[in-house]
């Protein structure tokens, strides 16, 4: 059993060996390079998804499953018994795809927040944006907003946007936005939202409301196809918008005045990008809880490997963020099997030390 979940880890490390040995920083971003890197990372994504599909607490022989899947492709009929089909296609597959989408959403949002706030430590979770989205979603569930189409994700997105306004308002003094103040504002807002979440969940007895753990640590175990479609749809919309503005984001990263002098309508671009990033964060949080640090680790790693151009950074982070969360979730459901860990435990265990490392290295 144990050997199975070492396979994804192996693939990850081999990817890094591959990526770090190439002198990728010397190349300018062109469309063909974006496509090549994206295809490569998509292949990694597929391989990791397949392996995760075959790994789990129920003992399904790997070779047997592969044979079953392959013969199924040839004959058109899967020669698997019903329970195996159910486990694979109704439990594991939606969860894996869901993890991929949530990971991609949080990483893409992380890239945009880091760029807009010009702060490599920004992340939807650390800045309290995920927390705000969670509060919005919980209020929606208590108030019965689920009867309105997109009611709960809509409230989560509003929560995320309000949090951005709040954190930005606290951190912005006169013309400058101080990195440290921004992070401190995020910490405080996060602490406040955690308290609000605890309060709301303890004082209401709504059956639809999930546990405190779900909202504070994040959990992908309740994934169903409907959630996959919801998050996938909004990720697609948000990502297209972000990608259209990705070159302008490069300019904003080099300074807002500079961006204006190079012809960017900075205020409008910022608003559109904040809206798109809040959209994908809010929707992901409303169905997966607040999974931390994905939006911090992945963009940063990709930036080290591929450079700072957002036209490459954005798709690469989304794809690799998806793979990362699939691996994290596979670990979450297998390490203590048959019990499960919330996936946020795994991401925080990787992310918090990484954050400290970044903080020290930057010598603030």
């Amino acid at each position: 059993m144990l050997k199975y979940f070492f396979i994804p880890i192996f693939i990850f490390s081999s990817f890094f060996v591959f990526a770090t040995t190439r002198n990728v920083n010397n190349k300018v971003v062109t469309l063909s390079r974006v496509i090549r890197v994206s295809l490569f990372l998509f292949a990694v994504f597929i391989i990791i998804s397949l392996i995760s599909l075959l790994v789990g607490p129920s003992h399904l022989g790997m070779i047997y499953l592969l044979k079953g899947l392959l013969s199924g492709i040839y004959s058109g009929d899967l020669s698997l018994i019903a329970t195996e089909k159910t486990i694979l296609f109704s439990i594991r597959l939606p969860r894996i795809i869901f993890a991929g989408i949530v990971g991609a959403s949080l990483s893409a949002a992380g890239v945009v927040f880091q760029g807009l706030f010009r702060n490599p430590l920004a992340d939807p979770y650390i800045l309290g944006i995920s927390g705000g989205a969670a509060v919005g979603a919980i209020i929606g569930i208590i108030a019965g907003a689920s009867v309105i189409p997109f009611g709960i994700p809509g409230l989560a997105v509003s929560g995320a946007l309000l949090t951005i306004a709040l954190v930005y308002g606290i951190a912005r003094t006169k013309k400058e936005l101080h990195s440290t103040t921004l992070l401190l504002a995020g910490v405080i807002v996060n602490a406040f939202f955690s308290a609000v979440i605890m309060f709301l969940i303890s004082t209401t007895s709504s059956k639809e409301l999930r546990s405190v753990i779900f909202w504070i640590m994040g959990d992908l175990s309740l994934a169903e196809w409907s959630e996959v479609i919801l998050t996938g749809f909004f990720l697609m919309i948000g990502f297209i918008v972000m990608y259209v503005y990705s070159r302008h984001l490069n300019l904003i990263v080099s300074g807002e005045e500079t961006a204006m002098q190079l012809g960017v309508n900075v205020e409008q671009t910022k608003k559109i990008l904040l809206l798109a990033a809040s959209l994908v964060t809010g929707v992901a949080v409303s169905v997966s809880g607040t999974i931390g640090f994905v939006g911090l680790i992945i963009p940063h790693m990709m930036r080290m490997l591929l450079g700072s151009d957002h036209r490459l950074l954005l798709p690469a982070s989304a794809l690799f963020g998806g793979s990362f969360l699939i691996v994290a979730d596979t670990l979450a459901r297998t390490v203590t099997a048959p019990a499960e860990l919330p996936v946020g435990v795994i991401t925080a265990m990787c992310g918090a030390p990484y954050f400290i490392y970044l903080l020290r290295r930057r010598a603030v």
Partner: protein
Amino acid sequence: MSIVKLEQIGFKYNEHQVLKNVSFEVKKGEFMGILGPNGSGKTTLLNVIDGILMPQEGEIWINGTSCNKLKRENLAKIIAVVPQESLMIFPFTVQEIVLMGRAPHLGKWRFEGETDFNIAHQAMEMTDTISLMNRSMNALSAGERQRVLIARALAQQPQIMLLDEPTAFLDIRHQIDFFDLIKALNKNQTLTVIGVTHDINLASLYCDRIILLRDGHIHCMGSPEEVIAESHIREVYETNVAVDKNPVTGQPRVTLLSSHPSEGGSRSNSGAAPQL
């Protein structure tokens, strides 16, 4: 025809009047210097010209078109700015920075094409930064970074280049190198240059005309010989200076004088110091 024309520009920053009744014209191919003490409105004036700040009064004409009617990206095709300093939070390479100058000529998300790469390469050759092309911007020295920023501005293919105290962090050699390069571009490519500087002597050496700002209005304007006179400098900067001629070029030269006679050493002996 004048390429830049300001008509009675007034700008307020939260009730604080920063610019008042500023009118002047800059001809195509002219090198215009803007001098003035801290807080006299030099940088604000520059930001008004490049459209970052909107003046409450008056109007600006670029190439005969009112600035209000120009879209941001169209303005950026005409005016490029070389800022004082630009530290990157994220590691962009020199080539990436220079290519950013192509932004106003590209659509929202188009990738740079052959022409854009050629223009960027030319800009890097002109500024002698081609060998730095693949280095990270943050790994360069201040002088090199400043040259990269000129290359980025050149990649914009502007008609007007604005300089915002570009040599503030440079040593004398790099200051001269910088202005020589700008002067060459000004002469050979008939690039119009409007530059803010603190260094009166550099302005005297390179500018065709100089504007001396005081409390947001034009105190005087004209050739270096006309503007850089003891009386003007003393009035505007409220500081004691001596002005004579640069022994090599014959341009006016400013010498700073301490107001503490005991530290003025040679001054009392020379007798050249003007008596207040």
